[in-house]
């Protein structure tokens, strides 16, 4: 009985498996850039590739969003069915590279001079063991303030240069009856804001030690406690309904003038653009007070998989097109980020974009370009998520004091290492 059942099973499954050959003139791409502006930006790349005779094929992801895409990617890689490339973030690239499934683009990188044009901090994630495994698409930075200019004029505020200035500005908004700070109470948003607070409170050296090197003494230090206290101060300026709000809704509050300011990465600019607002006249972009000169970044990358030889030509074409100056400029103008290479002319960018490009160049040369811990560029995902937990629990009151917060932070990071 059992043997017959097994025979039947073997028969049935042998029908189910059929060889599937991927088209060699095709770029199979896993990504989650499906919203209007992002999809339009990606179209530029599709057209560039079409000119060279390569077709573009999106790998479908059920549910959308980065998490779903990463789960899909994990399944594809486990099944040995590699896409040509996948949108990836920071440590994910290194994880996959360590698992030995990434391709090698070093030849192309040499020919195109990526070593010189891509900031060294980014190469930490796109180069593994001396081999180029990913093509960075852009650089986002998270230490920005987005301010509604009309509200700013109404309350007579000026650009805050220090954290105390910032608090004074928020007080002014509160007195004028506007929600001072638009925040979405989701752990990554709170932690993203906290990245800036730490940089502002402790300075660049401290940020690097605590948030990138995970130095225990720094994590436990009084400076870290002060950072948590400063975060607690900021949280008193949000509206009572902030918990669980999506980041783009928080941005919409600033756009509509319900709130004065949002602390968010430069992807928020895309929302201002979508609402037809111009920097300088409708909204203002400043660096988070006390962080001018430093850039806390995250970056989207196209991880390149170790595809069979006959599909490599398409992969090289994709990588070359991704890091071409024309695409870098066209894409990032739309996306709100800045190019991943520092030699792209800034002529097409708006005022905020120009400042972003100049800041990135300066930070790259001055050694003040740091990975954002909240965005997964400071430490591996396990640590980054432990960090987000602690920050979020502090914001929502499960962790009651800054003393407790630093103890928990050290413990959580130890656990996650």
């Amino acid at each position, binding site marked *: *009985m059992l043997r*017959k*059942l*097994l*025979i*039947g*099973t*073997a*028969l*049935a*499954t*042998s029908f189910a*498996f059929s060889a599937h050959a991927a088209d060699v003139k095709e770029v199979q791409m896993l990504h989650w850039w499906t919203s209007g502006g992002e999809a339009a930006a990606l179209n530029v790349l599709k057209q560039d590739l079409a000119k060279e005779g390569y077709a573009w094929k999106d790998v479908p992801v059920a549910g959308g969003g980065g*998490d779903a895409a*990463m*789960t899909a990617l*994990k399944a594809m890689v*486990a099944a040995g069915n590699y896409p040509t490339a996948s949108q990836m973030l920071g440590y*994910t690239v290194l*994880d*996959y590279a360590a*698992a030995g499934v990434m391709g090698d683009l070093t030849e192309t990188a040499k020919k195109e001079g990526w070593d010189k044009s891509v900031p060294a901090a980014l190469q930490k994630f796109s180069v593994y063991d001396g081999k180029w495994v990913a093509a960075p698409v852009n650089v986002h930075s998270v230490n920005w303030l987005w301010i509604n200019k009309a509200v700013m004029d109404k309350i007579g505020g000026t650009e805050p240069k220090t954290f105390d200035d910032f608090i004074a500005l928020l007080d002014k908004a509160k007195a004028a009856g506007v929600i001072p700070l638009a925040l979405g*109470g*989701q*752990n990554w948003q709170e932690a993203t804001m906290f990245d800036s607070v730490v940089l502002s409170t402790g300075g660049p050296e401290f940020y690097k030690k605590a948030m990138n090197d995970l130095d225990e003494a720094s994590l436990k230090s009084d400076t870290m406690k002060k950072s948590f206290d400063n975060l607690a101060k900021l949280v008193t300026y949000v509206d*009572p*309904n902030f*918990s*669980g709000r999506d980041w783009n809704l928080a941005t919409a509050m600033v756009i509509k003038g319900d709130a004065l300011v949002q602390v968010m990465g430069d992807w928020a600019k895309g929302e201002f653009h979508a609402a037809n607002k111009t920097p300088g006249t409708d909204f203002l972009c400043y660096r988070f007070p006390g962080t001018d000169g430093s850039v806390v970044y995250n970056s989207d990358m196209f991880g390149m998989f170790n595809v069979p030889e006959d599909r490599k030509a398409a992969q090289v074409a994709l990588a070359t097109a991704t890091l071409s100056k024309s695409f870098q400029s066209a894409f990032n103008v739309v996306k709100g980020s800045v190019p991943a290479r520092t030699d792209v002319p800034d002529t097409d960018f708006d005022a905020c974009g120009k400042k972003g490009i100049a800041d990135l160049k300066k930070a790259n040369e001055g050694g003040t370009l740091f990975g954002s811990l909240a965005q997964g560029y400071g430490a*591996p*995902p*396990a640590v980054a*998520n*432990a960090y987000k*937990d602690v920050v*979020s*629990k502090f*914001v*929502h*009151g*499960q*962790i*009651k004091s800054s003393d*407790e917060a630093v103890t*928990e932070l050290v413990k959580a990071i130890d*656990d*996650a290492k």
Partner: protein
Amino acid sequence: MSTVAETQIKLTPEHDAHPGASVRSRLQDLLPKIVLAPSFAATIVFVYGFILWTIYLSFTNSKTFPSYDITGARAYQRLWRWTFESDPPSSWYTSITNMGIFGFLYILICLALGLFLAILLDQKIRGEGVLRPIYLYPMALSFIVTGVAWKWFLDPGLGLEQTLHQWGWTSFHFDWIKNKDFVIYTVVIAGVWQASGFIMAMFLAGLRGIDGEIMKAAQIDGATTFQLYRRIVIPLLRPVFLSAFIVLAHLAIKSYDLVVALTSGGPGGSAWLPSNFMYEFTFKRNEMAVGSASAVIMLMTITAIIVPYLYSELREKSR
């Protein structure tokens, strides 16, 4: 796969070696098994195979990808330690206490409400045919729809509170969904709304199965309506209680989408259930071993509920 395929090739000549039995009768004999085989194989591999695989992984140090070196019960040790970290609450502590609160209230309220509605509907009222589907309908919705609808309804800035403020009752305050201590109760509310109609239908079927003669006899003996239900109907419904409990218990333990759609995890992760913990750790934090260990603990919890039930059911049948 290849080894099985080889056996299959070797076996084929054997069939030809016995021309005595007609091919047709052999085929007839084999056909049901061939048809059943795919689902049999799928169950063996995708249910039991992966249960074993998950148990195995929970004893490794798997991170982003599965790793196959057994490294001991470190994942369980961590979960055990987190079980007692209540202040500030560890994510695991939050998950299991939420499971306790949610499971207890969800099952209790669903049973009570379902029974109450069923008894009311059983009074031979007019329009039962219309009322029954109305109560039953929420079960036809997915948890995602339920979650999103209740999220809007309970949001202080959008739903109930805002509406009542507009109507003039400005002192009304209901922000449970934004409150770390109460958010789990909003999950209970949405869950009960979804499932109680279904439980009502189960009880209604049970009530309809009770012999009318018994009821009449009790009434002749002078039992009040309350006594009738308390002493006769509810004890007779015991098997329905058991089935409803099992259905609700496994719905409660596997609730995941409701928490995500309704609260996106709640303020500071305060609405997590063990299933959310498992997904977060396995897929977002690349701590596959810890995620697997939590899945095994969930499985053992379900087993602890289901096995006594199956045991008692099977024993009764064999008697």
